[in-house]
């Protein structure tokens, strides 16, 4: 309890313990540094109070000898690992991280690369699944980043590829990616679509149309790729 007590006495305004907890919780779940103004707005206290609260909290963590820190970086406050134990974090990154891009990640990255700037919702509608996890991974690896906000209503965050992505791929600009050819469905796709529209003659057909049919596009376009 000592930490929170320190914090409480450090700020002039009477701050209940929940405020500190709320601050910790918000900064913990944030994927980017949280601006003081935003914290102040959510917590319903002046910027200065929040600022001082964060400073006290950071000092308390340091004093308690935690393996994490609350730090102020450009844009706001965030948690990060303590430099003293970086060697373990490095070991974790080297040992514990997956070293292959999943199919879903590759597709999402390709969509971002070809259609940037693009919103999360647009990616979701193309892929048919929630892309949040994949976007997080790709951002974590530094391949994509938030490149702005949609000027339209909702102001959705827009995603684009980073210079690091181009560098890794050995190209100068996204314009160097192979041009998109008009999508022409292969014969089997056309057939599959037709079967789906035909009155099924027996049960076997019905069952086969239920399965998402493996779209054989790679068969044509992927040969040189891999």
């Amino acid at each position, binding site marked *: 309890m000592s930490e929170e007590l320190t914090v409480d006495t450090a700020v002039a305004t009477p701050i209940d313990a929940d405020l500190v907890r709320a601050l910790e919780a918000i900064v913990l*779940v944030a994927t980017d540094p949280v601006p003081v103004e935003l914290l102040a707005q959510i917590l319903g206290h002046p910027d200065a109070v929040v600022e001082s609260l964060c400073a006290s909290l950071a000092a308390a963590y340091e004093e308690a000898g935690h393996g994490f820190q609350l730090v102020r970086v450009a844009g706001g406050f965030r948690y990060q690992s303590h430099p003293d134990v970086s060697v373990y974090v490095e070991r974790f990154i080297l040992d514990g991280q997956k070293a292959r891009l999943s199919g879903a990640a*590759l597709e999402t990255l*390709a969509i971002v690369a070809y259609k940037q700037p693009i919103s999360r919702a647009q990616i979701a509608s193309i892929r048919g699944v929630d892309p949040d996890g994949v976007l997080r991974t790709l951002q974590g690896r530094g391949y994509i980043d938030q490149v702005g906000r949609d000027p339209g209503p909702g102001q959705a965050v827009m995603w684009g590829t980073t210079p690091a992505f181009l560098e890794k791929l050995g190209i100068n600009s996204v314009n160097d990616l192979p041009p*998109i050819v008009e999508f022409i469905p292969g014969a089997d796709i056309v057939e599959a679509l037709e079967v789906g529209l035909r009155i099924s003659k027996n049960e076997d057909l019905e069952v086969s149309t239920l399965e998402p049919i493996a*779209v054989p596009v790679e068969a044509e376009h992927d040969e040189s790729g891999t």
Partner: protein
Amino acid sequence: MAVDVSTPVFEGPFDLLLHLILKEQVDIYEVDLSVIVNSYVAEIAKMDVLDLELATEFLLIAATLVDIKARRLLPGREDIDIDEELGIWEERDLLLARLLECKTFKDVGQVFARLASAADRSYARRCGPDERFLELMPDLLEGVKPRQFLAAYMRAMAPKLAPKVDLFHVGVIKANVSDALAELVDELPRIGRISFRHLTADLVDRIEVIVRFLALLELFKQGFVELQQNEKFGDIEIVWLGDSESAMVGSMAIDDYEG
């Protein structure tokens, strides 16, 4: 009696049946199967959008219910055919077992809902290492060629086959048990032994399969066929017992089922 099925959409036959039976639970000795059967059939009649898969399940279960009800109406008699009796018991037990299983998982669903709503109040940290460690992160793009991005992009953009919304079935299908009986009595003596799956292999609509099934049950009751099902939901083996002359199809009082 007013059919009180004001409760919204029932998700399936078990859902409906569980509701109908359990709402009478207040005094279980008052449970009136006639009311249940009537409500059940009324509910089927209200389903105007025909999901044939679903309707099939509803109808098959309705058939079992009607069988049970019919049997209940008979006063206890000495001359009850034991095979017939056993058949109904089997159907009933199967239905009971399925209802119990369905109810079990409904209850588990409630538990899951509670777990999820408790877990939903916490948010996981997903941030990952900060930029100090960026260089250490394994390069997932190692060996990936621009060409593969095109392939992945094409794959993502390819039209996905829409989920099956098969409206072509919703035509007027007329099938009745009498016709099916006539066909079976014509066919079965020549074939002798056949599995139900084979017998119905070339039927286009599920309702026709159901009607065949109901017709078979009727033949079974009358002692013209032997039915064998070695495992639950397994294929049914049909063996013709009677001779074609004795099949007095005309004398069978069968309700027509029209889909």
